[in-house]
């Protein structure tokens, strides 16, 4: 039940966020609608409005179906199936709203061709010389320094206290991974100031101002992201090293972190959008470069003549890659693989949950086996053996945790860190302490099986 709540709280908001971001693209901005550049006076054309209306209806229908799907997870008690439902749902969410968008894009392109709505600057790259004269660097990079220092503190502590213990290495690896986002921000900040200019008019002052607004707001966005991530890195480190014990608190912190990440990006994007709208409306000589030929379905940028690797997105928030460049192609493949790996990981998880828990004993050792994991202890290494009929409080350090399986390294109240492989719904557990004082907690699939093995085990131990 706990897992279901977590998945609902963390995953469900993705649906309205994706829906509203894509729906927002059905409104014109800078003469671009559904990823197609149209002359200003054709944006309200009834045929254009009809295409947009159909796309909106289609999106609404999809949203309703997708809103109901996660509730099917309430019908099952198996964590892996709940996870599979959500992960498949998220995978579908990644692309499904783009389908009506792509259909609308094709229809609008066809209409544009039929009506001969071609703009003068079709298929060209426009550069404003006056805007290019300005050195694009109003915000100082030194703003990132405190965030970088904050992020380095837990990593340095881990490096100074490093031992061969798994938990130390895990803390260092995961904290560094989380902290990477902070280190990425100055790089993205630098990229933000090298992105294309905002050209909306023949008037260079308008273009200059709009370009400055975009660069400044995204510069601030990356500074904000770096501080948010720095604070989260420290809190994450505190949790992974058990200074924060409550998983609920940690999940709330993670939720807030995600919220603030989104807030920084949305804030920047909508400030820029508002400025674009205002400047386009005010301009008597409004101007829009038609780069439709470089955007596949209005979504993916493919321009082999443009050496920019990162460009402002046409649809959605933030930036996109130039998929004509080798790095862009590699990035695209990696993203596609990650998206495909998500539902495949669910298959692995289902296999894991439905694999039997085996506790066996032979002449020399006791073995607990589940799926691909085997824990074996030779009798000669055993110091003491006892049983528990009730499990103390446990929390996972690393490993697997289903409602019917705990496997891996767990912290058990009064016993420290233990290697476990048991069914937590059982009422009988074998606790083995080795000569090196390392503790193992095992059980069979049922109490009966556990008792059988225990009875044999105590005859084998001197």
């Amino acid at each position, binding site marked *: 039940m706990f897992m279901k709540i977590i998945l609902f709280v963390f995953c469900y908001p993705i649906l309205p966020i994706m829906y509203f971001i894509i729906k927002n693209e059905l409104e014109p901005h800078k003469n671009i609608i559904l990823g197609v550049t149209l002359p200003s006076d054709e944006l309200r054309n009834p045929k254009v409005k009809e295409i947009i209306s159909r796309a909106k209806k289609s999106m609404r229908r999809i949203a309703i179906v997708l809103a109901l799907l996660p509730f099917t997870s309430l019908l099952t008690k198996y964590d892996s199936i709940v996870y599979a439902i959500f992960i498949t749902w998220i995978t579908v969410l990644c692309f499904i709203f783009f389908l009506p968008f792509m259909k609308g894009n094709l229809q609008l392109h066809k209409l544009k061709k039929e009506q001969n709505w071609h703009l003068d600057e079709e298929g060209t*790259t426009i*550069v404003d010389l006056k805007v290019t004269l300005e050195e694009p660097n109003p915000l100082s990079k030194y703003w990132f320094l405190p965030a970088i220092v904050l992020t380095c503190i837990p990593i340095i502590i881990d490096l100074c206290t490093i031992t061969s213990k798994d938990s130390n290495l895990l803390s260092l690896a995961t904290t560094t991974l989380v902290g990477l986002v902070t280190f990425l921000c100055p790089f993205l900040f630098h990229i933000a100031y090298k992105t294309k200019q905002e050209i909306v008019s023949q008037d260079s002052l308008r273009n200059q101002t709009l370009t400055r607004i975009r660069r400044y707001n995204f510069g601030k966005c990356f500074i904000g992201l770096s501080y948010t991530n720095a604070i989260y890195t420290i809190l994450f480190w505190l949790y992974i090293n058990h200074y924060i014990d409550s998983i609920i608190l940690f999940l709330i912190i993670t939720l807030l972190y995600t919220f603030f990440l989104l807030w920084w990006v949305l804030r920047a994007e909508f400030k820029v959008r508002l400025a674009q709208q205002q400047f386009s409306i005010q301009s008597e000589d409004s101007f829009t470069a038609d780069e439709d030929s470089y955007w596949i379905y209005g979504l993916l940028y493919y321009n082999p003549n443009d050496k920019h690797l990162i460009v402002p997105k046409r649809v959605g928030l933030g930036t996109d890659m130039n998929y004509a460049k080798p790095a862009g192609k590699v990035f695209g493949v990696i993203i596609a693989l990650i998206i495909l790996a998500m539902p495949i990981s669910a298959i692995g998880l289902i296999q894991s949950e439905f694999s039997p828990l085996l506790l066996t004993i032979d002449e020399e050792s006791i073995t607990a086996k589940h799926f691909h994991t085997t824990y074996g202890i030779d009798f000669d290494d055993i110091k003491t053996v006892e049983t528990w009929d009730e499990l103390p409080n446990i929390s996972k350090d690393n490993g697997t945790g289903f409602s019917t399986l705990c496997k891996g390294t767990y912290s058990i109240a009064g016993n420290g860190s233990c290697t476990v492989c048991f069914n937590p719904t059982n009422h009988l557990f074998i606790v083995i302490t080795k000569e090196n004082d390392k503790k193992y907690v095992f059980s069979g699939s049922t109490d009966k099986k556990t008792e059988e093995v225990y009875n044999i085990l105590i005859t084998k131990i001197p």
Partner: protein
Amino acid sequence: MLLSLDFSSDIPIYQQIRNQIIIAISDGKLLPGDQLPTIRNLADQSGINMMTVSKAYQLLKQEGYITADRRNGAKVAPRNVSSSEIPRVLHNELQLLISQFHLQGVKEDQFLSLCKELYNKEG
């Protein structure tokens, strides 16, 4: 002043940059002494190679439309309006253009009328 670069055109990009800067100087959009962007900035902003921009600037400098040095960067050169001599290069380009119009079947008076119209636009 907007530069419009058409990558599908047969005209090389450096030539397009050169042509449009000359037209802008003639139109008065760029005045003598006006600063031009650095090669790096223009290449970064337009997404084209620095060598392409450099070639365009070199050509403009050779033809006397701009001045360029390390300290001051590239600037629009002062105009030498007193000279009545027609440069050989322009003479040859005009000859080629006239040949092309002739082959298209355009009559002399039509051609001259067009020349007058375009020349008056330059101001």
